[in-house]
């Protein structure tokens, strides 16, 4: 039986008076590829950011790999279980690509320099940027930076990788190179949660799609159900606008 890797239970989040997540319940199974879509401001990003406590829910519970995530244990639990890829890449600009990739394995996962560098080279091969190991992030294109950021996330070898709009800050012509890497990853047994506006990607890769609007999940289902015959009017509207 496949276990739940992530579970959100009655999660509410307020930013001041703004109620951005309204009683969200969601489970993600081990190895599942979950794609979250919806209009901007609907709480998609906040939802994934609650999964690694970059945002702490105002109320409700988050369980990761069977353990409850709390303010106290977040650093240790996140270190072992999840990685994240950001819209703005967030590579460390004062370090080479190699240092970006080996920092966490060496300092947090107790690998030797040699082991960490072998790991880094392996994942640089996966994203096709082995030749950029000694480059500094700012000298790379957006697409390349994001592929490096994905490699950095993979170097932690966690069961869960979260993607928060990984292609939204990219030039149109570099989006595909990042999506290709993510499609490749989807064949592994990693649990992936992806917030995206790339419907083609969602259709091709998702095991399940969740649609959010106004801080709530208003529809979820397989890609086929979703794109062929969505039941919710709000979803139909959204898809109508985005797919032409």
């Amino acid at each position, binding site marked *: 039986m496949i276990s739940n890797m992530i579970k959100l239970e009655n999660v509410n989040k307020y930013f001041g008076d703004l109620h951005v997540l309204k009683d969200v319940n969601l489970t993600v199974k081990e190895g599942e590829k979950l794609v979250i879509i919806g209009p901007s401001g609907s709480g998609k990003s906040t939802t994934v950011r609650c999964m*690694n406590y*970059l945002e702490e829910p105002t109320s409700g519970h988050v369980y990761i790999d069977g353990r409850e995530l709390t303010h106290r244990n977040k*650093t*240790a639990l*996140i*270190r*072992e279980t*999840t*990685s*994240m890829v*950001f819209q*703005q*890449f*967030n*590579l*460390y*600009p*004062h370090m080479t690509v190699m240092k970006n990739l080996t*920092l*966490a394995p060496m*300092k*947090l996962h107790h690998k030797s320099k040699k082991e960490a560098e072998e790991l880094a080279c392996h994942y640089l091969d996966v994203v096709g940027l082995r030749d950029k190991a000694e480059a500094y992030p*700012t000298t790379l294109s*957006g697409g390349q930076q994001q592929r490096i950021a994905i490699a950095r996330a993979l170097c*932690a070898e966690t069961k869960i990788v*979260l993607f928060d709009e990984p292609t939204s800050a990219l*030039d*149109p012509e570099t989006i595909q190179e990042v999506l290709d890497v993510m499609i490749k990853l989807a064949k592994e047994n990693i649990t992936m949660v992806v917030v995206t506006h790339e419907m083609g990607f969602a259709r091709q890769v998702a095991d399940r799609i969740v649609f959010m609007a106004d801080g709530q999940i208003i529809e979820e289902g397989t890609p086929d159900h979703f794109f062929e015959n969505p039941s919710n009017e709000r979803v139909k509207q959204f898809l109508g606008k985005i797919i032409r």
Partner: protein
Amino acid sequence: MSGILSPQAWEKVWTFRGTFLLGLGNTIQVALLGLLLAFILGIIFGLMATGENKVLKVISRVYVELIQNTPLLLQLCFLYYAFAFSSHSLGILVSGMISLGVYHGAYIAEVVRAGIEAVPKGQFEAARSQGFSYVQRMFYIILPQSIKIILPPLVNQVVNMIKNTSCLYLIGGSDLISLTYSFVTGENTGGAYAPAYILSGVLFFCICFPLSTLASVWENSLKKRERRVVVQKKTALEGRV
């Protein structure tokens, strides 16, 4: 005797040049020790001001506001005389070092805070998402990036501290300004006002000018680099349209 052009006055200053060098040595000594204290306090309180703990934030704020909104002279006299009259005299040099350290520590704390806050939020988030603890985040990821922003104003604080050693005069110090003053008012040495203050000023200038030049060169190269990055981003954006 006291005129700028009087050869005798210059001769007297030259004869007693040792006094000025001693004063300079004392000034540098107090400044260096004070600086060490100021750096330690500045980094600790700067980190406290940017951390998540609200109590530490308030403590840091109170320290900075209290120190920045009262005169250095008052702090120095308070420290020196309060202890001197409670029979635990700290001595002039130690009092000077501590009060200069605490005073400039408050300014350095603000410099450190601004430097940390200038690092984009995404850097903190990336570090947190990887599971780095607070100290690790600061040490490996944030501080190495803020150091470039922090350094120029930090050097300016060093310059200010060297000049502020002159406050030691009030508690009977033996720093450069105090010794210059006793020289020009002394019974045997008195009178050579202009040459003495010119020499004293030249000595201060020789130490402070290179430092403040370094700071402004640093600042300009930093600005240039920023401009380059902005231009790059702009062209990248225009390329998208």
